[in-house]
């Protein structure tokens, strides 16, 4: 993003000049009537209204709308009021004397008070140093120093107009993923799938984005994407890795280990993700690449791995909990959190989270219903 756009000196002067002109116009509006003598001007009176009512009766009578006796009665009534009004009229007439002292005070109020109030209120609120920044001008700024966000914005605008541009979605999606805009990345991968057609790689990418959006948890939705990817290409490394991770998160450590072991067996020796899979494998205690270890060592490494694994899951759950604390209206998120606590065997925390969840979305009946149903299936209903 650009730096603070300060006004050049000349523009600054113009702005203050405009302010001064406006102030003068405002002061003038106050001073104008003070200088004139208002007595000559005509003003309305009650007498005129009653006279008009009398005329109205004549008109109704002429049109045959009211019978003559009614008209006569009304005429008498209005005439009576007319006389009363005429009698009281002079009492409220404008006093002839003009009060010079007060007029001067009012003039001073306008001349000094108005600019003081205006500046006094404007200065703390306004930003006279900032120039306008309309879209047209912004687009004229040459492409220097285009930040990644701006580029992404431009691509998004392009895709908004040409949503069927599959290549565009393909380019955009990984960038969004890297920027941490996981929800947008999910949408972009979905569009990429729609317009570029099925491929194991895209399905797996979508699954990855989905689990990233879920704070690292391979959700059912993400898992189904990985399964589709796996069905398309049984050797797709990303799908296999995440299916393993899903198994691990479900508590099926042996399944996870076997999936990862198979993945490593087929992997080219220089695959960049080898290390990641190996550490993952070690984590679930399936470090079976070295079968010659003694039982004791295996047990030890198993223990250690157990701790590591817990730390990792805990980290994930922690992240999810923090996210929900900031933005509590995500029903799925809450359910995931409760499920995670239950899996970790922390029933108290699970209960606590479900209470928090109810509070966070209490204002929305529909979501509350979803939550309650979800909790019931987890065995926490009631």
């Amino acid at each position, binding site marked *: 993003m650009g730096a603070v*756009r300060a006004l050049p000196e000349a523009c600054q002067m113009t702005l203050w000049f405009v302010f001064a002109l406006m102030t003068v116009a405002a002061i003038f*509006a106050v001073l104008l009537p003070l200088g004139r003598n208002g007595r000559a001007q005509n003003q309305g009176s*009650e007498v005129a209204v009653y006279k008009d009512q009398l005329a109205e009766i004549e008109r109704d009578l002429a049109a045959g*709308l009211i019978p003559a006796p009614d008209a006569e009665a009304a005429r008498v009534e209005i005439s009576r009021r007319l006389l009363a009004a005429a009698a009281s009229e002079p009492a409220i007439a404008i006093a002839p004397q003009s009060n010079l002292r007060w*007029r001067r005070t009012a003039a001073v109020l306008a001349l000094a008070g108005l600019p003081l109030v205006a500046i006094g209120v404007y200065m703390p*609120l*306004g930003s006279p140093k900032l120039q306008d920044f309309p879209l047209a001008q912004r687009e004229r700024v040459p492409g220097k120093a285009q930040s990644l966000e701006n580029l992404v914005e431009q691509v998004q605008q392009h895709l*908004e*107009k040409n949503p069927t541009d599959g290549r565009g979605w393909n380019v955009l999606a990984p960038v969004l993923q890297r920027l941490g805009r996981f929800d947008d990345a999910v*949408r972009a991968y979905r569009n990429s799938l729609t317009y570029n057609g099925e491929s194991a790689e895209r399905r797996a990418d979508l699954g990855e984005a989905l689990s990233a959006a879920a704070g690292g948890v391979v959700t059912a939705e993400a898992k189904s994407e990985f399964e589709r990817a796996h069905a398309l290409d049984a050797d797709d490394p990303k799908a296999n890795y995440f299916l393993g991770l899903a198994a691990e998160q479900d508590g099926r450590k042996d399944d996870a280990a076997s999936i990862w072991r198979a993945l490593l067996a087929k992997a080219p020796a220089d695959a960049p993700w080898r290390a990641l899979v190996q550490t993952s494998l070690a984590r679930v205690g399936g470090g079976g690449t070295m079968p010659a270890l003694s039982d004791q060592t295996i047990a030890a490494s198993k223990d250690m791995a157990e701790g590591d694994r817990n730390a990792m899951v805990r980290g994930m759950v922690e992240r999810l909990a923090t996210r929900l604390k900031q933005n509590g209206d995500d029903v799925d998120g809450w359910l995931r959190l409760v499920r995670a606590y239950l899996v970790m065997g922390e029933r108290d925390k699970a209960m606590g989270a479900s209470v928090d969840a109810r509070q966070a979305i209490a204002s929305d009946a529909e979501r509350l219903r979803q939550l309650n149903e979800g909790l019931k299936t987890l065995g926490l209903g009631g």
Partner: protein
Amino acid sequence: MIAESGHYALVLALGLALIQSVVPLIGVRLRDAALMNVARSTALAQLLFVVASFIALVMLHVNSDFSVANVYENSHSMKPLLYKITGVWGNHEGSMLLWVSILALFGGLVAAFGNNLPLSLCAHVLAVQAWIASAFYLFILVTSNPFLRIANPPIEGRDLNPVLQDIGLAVHPPMLYLGYVGFSISFSFAIAALMEGRIDAAWARWVRPWTLMAWIFLTLGIAMGSYWAYYELGWGGWWFWDPVENASLMPWLSGTALLHSALVMEKRNALKVWTILLSILTFSLSLLGTFLVRSGVITSVHAFATDPTRGVFILLILCLFIGGSLSLFAGRATSLKQGGLFAPISREGALVLNNLLLTVACAVVLFGTLYPLAMEMLADFKMSVGAPFYNLTFAPLFALLLLAVPFGPMLAWKRGDLLGVTQRLLAAGVAGLVAVAITWGWATGGSTLAPLAIGLGVFVIAGAVTDIVERTGLVRLPFATVLHRARGLPRSAWGTAFAHAGLGVALIGIVCETTWNSEHIATMKQNDVAQIAGFDVKLDGLLQRQGPNYREMIAQFNVSRDGQPVSVMTPSKRSFSTRGSSTTEAALLTRGASQLYISLGDANAEGAIAVRIYYKPMVLLIWWGPVLMAFGGVLSLSDRRLRVGAPKPARAKQRLQPAE
């Protein structure tokens, strides 16, 4: 430069309003014409500056200047131009600026066309206007400033709430605000009268056109809002007794009462104090509406943002003006002269009954709106007061009112002949009974009360027709005379007839829609056929389309009746990527006053889509009624005897003659 100039113009308007709220009052005390005239010139200058400020904000939105926080938060460079403009008041800050612009507009109108007002009254009125204006300028500048800037402007805005991206936003809020704020004039006149310590028939004559104008706009604004909710929200509902809707209904009810009591005051010089009180109450309810909607006490489409400081600020304004005006009323009302006696059975009596019923109805709505809020705040207990409550309370009151409506205009002033009027209304009564009988015979299912309500609606319409027939002598006299008399009939009489008939029309629409609507909710696949109210609705297919700032899934339905194709309907679902939300665009097929209504739900993976199809008989009458009422209001307003500048010299009258 535009942003800062607009901001500064608003600050200057505040300065002018402050001067306008003090100097004219000193002028009145000293009887100094020059000081009193300051009110008029400052009111005009204030209008100039507020309009400049509003135009500046519009330009910023049109130019997509995202260095202004308000534009960044509510606009998007790809939005169509119309929504860039309407988006100006599609958010809290902008809508408050529109509010004060309209307030300044009314102040400016009083200043410009008030030369027939006594100078001291004009000064008082404009000073009171300036108090209201100052309070709201301060509110805007301190808590909801639309001109705040962002030093590092983002590249793209966050877009307007998609539900609001509709032509309705161009019409509904300005109309509603013209109504709400229009009542500030009668409020200011009432306060001015209390301060001057005298009111008379002439006062009512000046107030009535303003009240009528505000009432027309409010009527149209509410009707428009209701129709908008009907077609945009996709549930086919048109009134939800939602607090925000009630907030607009309450000023309408008391404004209608005010309109009628001002009539008594003008014609018979009676009910003065009551009229003053109603003026105060009506505007207080408008302010209350603003508070409920703007403070975020209620969360809804209308509460664009919630911020406690705003709520507290508006609550302060509310207490200051309602409390202040009511205590002034309490202190001064006794000193006002009462006048004009009348028998209970008379036009005045009928109008008092009207006022009584309308104010009680208004009180019921007020209770239904505030009680749940109070319970939530005090007892931390959530409840909602909905249709069942209002059906039990509001509906009987209104039924009683409607039963009395045809009698009112036919009763004589001062002392009426109820029996005579009943005889003359016999034909209308028979028409109503016939309507009951016919609906009873035809109707299948539904409430037993429905035919009765329809009969009531027909009775109200027939009553309005009877009134005109009586006045023109349509049956008794030769046609030429009738024509002459019809032309000579005051337009306000025509206006009364139209407005009252509008009530009947709306009632028939409401009853038909709620009693005999049918709905069909299903998940449909391509070539599936749904049957509803004799129509066959076939889903031809789904297609995608790209709009300017949204993507749209359109479902194409072929509607046929007895094998004959009727029309093609294309409801759609739009998804807006910037806010990641979507809207339902219902498709409407109008047949006479009835409508077929299709809105889409979610599509599932197999290409099937949830569809809601409604058949709503006579539904359009619900909105034709208010339009008819507003038309009656316009007729009444065009009656030159009610003009703002009522007393015109004879020469001017002649000049105006051909136009009539």
